[in-house]
């Protein structure tokens, strides 16, 4: 098994973190894993993406040309990356900020992750909603391990932050693809 995931959005959307949580989860399961960030010239507000590869085998390039899954958080990223999904791939789109192309033939999960996050009281957890819905479709890493990671990463002095992240993850897992 080798799963190549591109996660893309804009700076401030927690793109890098989403990827890291996924990568740490895979590490807990003793998988091979690589995480590769990429930044545009913009420091803030610009495009940002990262690439996560999870495998039972040694991993070649951490750079992904054709992905098994895209997690897309805004329109610009959608436009930029939609061509890089394999025909058999899974597309996860934040429809709060991006309009998935109807003509796309690949399996797609789309949800208003940002709106959901706002609903949860913290716009920043849209990334966890997205992660949850990806995991719901592809059990590359078990949600339990992802939970563990989130628990470890969360600042100990802000329990409410942890809670909202967990809630977001859960919301995500409730998505159905179709």
């Amino acid at each position, binding site marked *: 098994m080798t799963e190549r995931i591109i996660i893309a959005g804009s700076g401030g959307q927690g793109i890098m973190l989403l990827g890291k949580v996924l990568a*740490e989860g895979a590490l807990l399961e003793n998988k091979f894993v690589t995480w*590769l960030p990429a930044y545009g010239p913009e420091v803030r507000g610009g495009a940002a993406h990262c690439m996560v590869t999870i495998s039972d085998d*040694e991993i*070649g*390039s*951490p750079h992904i040309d054709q992905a098994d899954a895209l997690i897309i958080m805004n329109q610009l990223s959608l436009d930029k990356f939609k061509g890089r999904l394999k025909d058999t791939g899974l597309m996860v789109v934040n429809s709060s900020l991006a309009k998935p192309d109807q003509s796309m033939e690949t399996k797609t999960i789309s949800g208003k992750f940002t709106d959901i996050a706002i609903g949860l009281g913290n716009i920043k957890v849209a990334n966890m909603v997205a992660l949850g819905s990806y995991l719901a479709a592809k059990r590359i890493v078990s949600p339990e391990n992802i939970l563990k990671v989130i628990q470890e990463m969360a600042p100990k002095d802000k329990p409410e932050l942890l809670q909202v992240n967990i809630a977001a993850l859960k919301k995500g897992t409730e998505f159905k693809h179709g």
Partner: protein
Amino acid sequence: MPKILMSGNDAIAEGAIQAGCSFYAGYPITPQNELTAYMANNMPKRGGIFIQAEAEVAAINMVFGAAAAGVRAMTSSSSPGISLKQEGISYIAGAELPAVIVNIMRGGPGLGNIAPSQSDYFQATRSGGHGDYHCLVLAPASVQEGYDLTYLAFSLADKYRVPAIILGDGLLGQMMEPVKLTSQRPGLPAKPWALTGCAGRKANVAKSFYLKEGDLEKLNLKLQKKYKEIIAQEQRWEELFLDDARLALVAYGSMARIAKSAVKTLRAKGKRVGLIRPVSLWPFPKKAFAKPRNKYLVIEMSYGQMLEDVQLVLCGKAQVEFLGRSGGGIPSEEEIISKVNKIYNG
């Protein structure tokens, strides 16, 4: 100790600290900023010195000073900054000081861009500075190796009293992978030549200047002798599926990871291909080429630099093909496979 997820830059920094590096001076530059930041965060807490130097030139010369004073010392930068350090590296080599220099290469020439690249191979392996000197050059291909080879670089630098370079690229520096940290601190060798104050002994001098006729040639002969020994002792490489290979791919660093994937894919399709991954770039692992083989394909994120070393080793005894891209272009697995398909027969 369990594995932890770490970036290549962080792993190199941690490897240095574990190796007993107690002095780091650097100047920020992408894509190695995490390394500098790691040092800024960790050195003071762990008994070492961190200096954000005013510039790369100052940083390498601070390292000269700290190394002359007998401690394990390191600097890091990326391509343009490493170019600025060439004079200093030549001085370190000439004064026979041990030091570690990390180059997380980016696209060039000039300001280029911050994409990964392997275009500083010549500079690293053929003394970008002036004079007949060499640096030991180690090229990690994984974050784990970033850690391990940095650790090793310090001990080899001390052993031979030479500068050692860790040559990585932006991919390696910025990617995260699981790493196992081995936490035994090494015993540091005695350095009777170090500048520590002349109490109880004759005064020591750290220098590369030899004015008297013949003296500089003597130093050079001494260096050459040392280099011969390093060439004999320190060739390192990894090999894969070479036993029955008709065609051996040759690639180092991040490039070798992609080449390895290609090799596996090709093997799965029944092609007898193998891989030589040089780990030490200087000394170049000539020994890996000892067994007669028909064909080689050298793959680089540059336009044929390591290629020359392969050609020099093989000396016409095998067909050597090349695939390279530069300036941020990375030969993909598909490109490699299609190149192999073209040259495999015939």
